[in-house]
């Protein structure tokens, strides 16, 4: 399902109406081009532009055509434009200005023959129908008039005219942020399975996006919620694409075969047998596990191979092993023992080619780059050797480099937050996330349930890792998942 941000233009200004009422407008300035550019940079492929002046007056103004031209020239967005189109010449004028598709509403009822001709001339991929419904009745002329036609009859009519796509707006929901009328779309979808439906009106969050996708909409138009900043476009796009769950990952630091946990990588306490803990977490609903070997000696380190085999036989979820991995041979031994992914940290900083060697040998999907970051002014620097040594490397640059070399995932730990329960460093996370395309695991600082949700909401993390809060049962994995579910994120329950 495609997410299409909307810009409604009234006399050159960006506005939003409440329920289509021209007396209840909110003004968002006059810089449509900047707004369009922002939406494009956030991942939009198409922009929905409504000419409210045209809708109201029943005509297409040259000013509006020029505005549209500026947007198509200055962005790579496909444009879908409607409002006040009353002739074939209007449609030509918009296409000539670079518009991709035009949206016809009122003239479907006032001049169906013209509409039929337009569909024949330009084809149903470039002409889409817009039906605005209030309580099952279609409204026209910027919702100022009722057509007297039932929505159901109108849909049958547009199909007969030759449309294959229809934008259906529920006026009562529009600009009200009360959620989309999912039932309406699902009903229409069932009755007219060959018609592509774009939902519009009242979309406020990713929960609405998900239910419209489930209702079978092929696209959704979002206006006010984006303008108000109550939801961000990338999150909506993400939710429109998939039910990929936010992963909750307990992390076990292991030394000499025992789980340990400290604060800022110091003052280690015993936290139990790693295989037992792994089994417990798996039963409690963990999506994945991470084991980090923090052993001091080579002999202790060799116990990790044995641990990988035992864990693989004990749990039916994926797990990553890291810590002390120096070579492709080490990594292969861990994979052969049963680990799914191998994380490298200091060794990759010292010899970045290790990442490419691993990716080449067993795939980037199984190659994780763990990065320990310490805040320094407005930046973050990479730490090595379990946080004991600071390098001059910039975390963001290193993350980009690691991705380029072959890392398929980044495990990003904030040294400053580790073990403090003060919440994740969401600035660090979002800064890295903006610069890489691979998944990022948030680590360091897990505290309250809210802190987990913030790592994803503000930090844009794909997965959230925690140790102490799970080891010492401050939080249950299930409760963390419920918190995500209440915030409308998909989780595997």
């Amino acid at each position, binding site marked *: 399902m495609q997410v299409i941000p909307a810009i409604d233009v009234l006399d050159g200004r960006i506005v939003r109406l409440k329920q289509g009422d021209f007396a209840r407008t909110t003004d968002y300035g006059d810089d449509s081009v900047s707004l369009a550019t922002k939406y494009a940079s956030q*991942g939009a492929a198409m922009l929905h532009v409504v000419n409210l002046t045209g809708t109201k007056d029943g005509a297409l103004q040259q000013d509006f055509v020029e505005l549209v031209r500026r947007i198509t020239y200055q962005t790579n967005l496909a444009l879908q434009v409607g409002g006040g189109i009353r002739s074939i010449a209007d449609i030509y004028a918009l296409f000539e200005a670079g518009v991709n598709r035009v949206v016809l509403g009122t003239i479907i009822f006032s001049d169906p023959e013209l509409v039929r001709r337009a569909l024949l001339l330009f084809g149903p991929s470039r002409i889409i129908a817009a039906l605005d419904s209030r309580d099952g009745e279609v409204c026209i002329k910027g919702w100022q008039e009722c057509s007297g036609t039932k929505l159901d009859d109108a849909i049958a009519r547009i199909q007969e005219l030759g449309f294959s796509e229809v934008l259906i707006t529920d006026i009562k929901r529009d600009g009200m942020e009360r959620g989309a009328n999912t039932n309406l779309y699902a009903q229409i979808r069932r009755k007219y399975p060959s018609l592509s439906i774009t939902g519009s009106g009242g979309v406020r969050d990713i929960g609405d996006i998900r239910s419209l*996708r489930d209702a079978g909409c092929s696209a959704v138009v979002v206006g006010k919620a984006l303008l108000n900043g109550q939801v961000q476009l990338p999150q909506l796009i993400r939710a429109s*694409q*998939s*039910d*990929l*769950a936010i*992963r909750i990952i307990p992390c076990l630091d292991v030394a000499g075969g025992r789980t340990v946990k400290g604060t800022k990588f110091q003052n280690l306490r015993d936290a139990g047998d790693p295989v037992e803990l792994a089994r417990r977490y*798996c039963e409690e609903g963990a*999506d*994945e596990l991470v084991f980090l070997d923090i052993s001091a000696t080579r002999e202790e380190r060799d116990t990790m191979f044995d641990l*990988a*085999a035992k864990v*693989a*036989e*004990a749990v*039916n*979820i*994926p797990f990553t092993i890291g810590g002390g991995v120096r070579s492709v041979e080490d*990594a*292969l031994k861990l*994979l*052969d*023992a*049963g*680990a*799914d*992914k191998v994380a490298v940290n200091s060794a990759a900083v010292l010899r970045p080619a290790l990442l490419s060697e691993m990716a*080449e*040998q*067993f*795939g*980037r*999907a*199984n190659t994780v780059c763990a990065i320990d970051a310490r805040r320094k002014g407005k930046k973050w620097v990479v730490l090595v050797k379990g946080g004991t040594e600071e390098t001059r490397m910039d975390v963001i640059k290193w993350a980009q480099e690691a991705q380029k070399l072959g890392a*398929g*995932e980044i495990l990003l730990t904030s040294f400053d937050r580790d073990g403090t329960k003060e919440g994740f460093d969401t600035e660090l996370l979002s800064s890295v996330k903006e610069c890489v*395309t*691979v*998944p990022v695991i948030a680590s360091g600082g897990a505290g309250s349930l809210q802190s987990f949700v913030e790592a994803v909401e503000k930090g844009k993390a*794909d*997965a959230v890792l925690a140790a102490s809060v799970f080891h010492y049962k401050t939080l249950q994995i299930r409760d963390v998942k419920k918190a995500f579910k209440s915030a409308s994120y*998909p989780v*595997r329950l």
Partner: protein
Amino acid sequence: MMIRLHSPQIGILRYSAGNTGSVQRALTRLGIPSRIIEKPTELKDVDGIIFPGAGAAGTAMKCLRETGWAEAIQSYRKPFLGLCLGMQLLFDFSEEDSTQCLGIINGRVTELSDKLIKPHMGWNKLSTGDYAYFVHSYVCEPTDPSVITIKTAYGDDLCAGVQQDNFFGVQWHPEKSGYVGDQYLLSFYELCR
């Protein structure tokens, strides 16, 4: 009275280091008898094959050709299950390293869109409603859509499972997909009996 001479055994195809560990442990956990097989001559000793892919298509196909596995798989008539890359290699061609693959199932393997977070990693919902664990950047596009048994949504609807004759494939990892994965592997074992 029928006497079973041997309990059926699944062969895990090992064509290079590192690709068999987690599947082998999963079968052990489920009590499914299995052995690692490295040469096509060992095929006679097993009742079905699991082929866990690892690494990139190019290197994997090169290994399969050099070791004689490519022909052995093409002419295999017992149940065969390809996991992840193991499923992708069953197709004609993969965009990954522009690789000619085994050509058992018609179709291409294409790269996921750059607009998506890549790899597609984590638990995603299957068309069956269950969550399963995925890790991949390439996706199968069978010529004949009727070979698709399972789908998942990631950007578009992706092919998450296929079947053609004795060849089965899943893009997700049943060895790592909790109860759902366990059930899938147990059903495959039943098929080999």
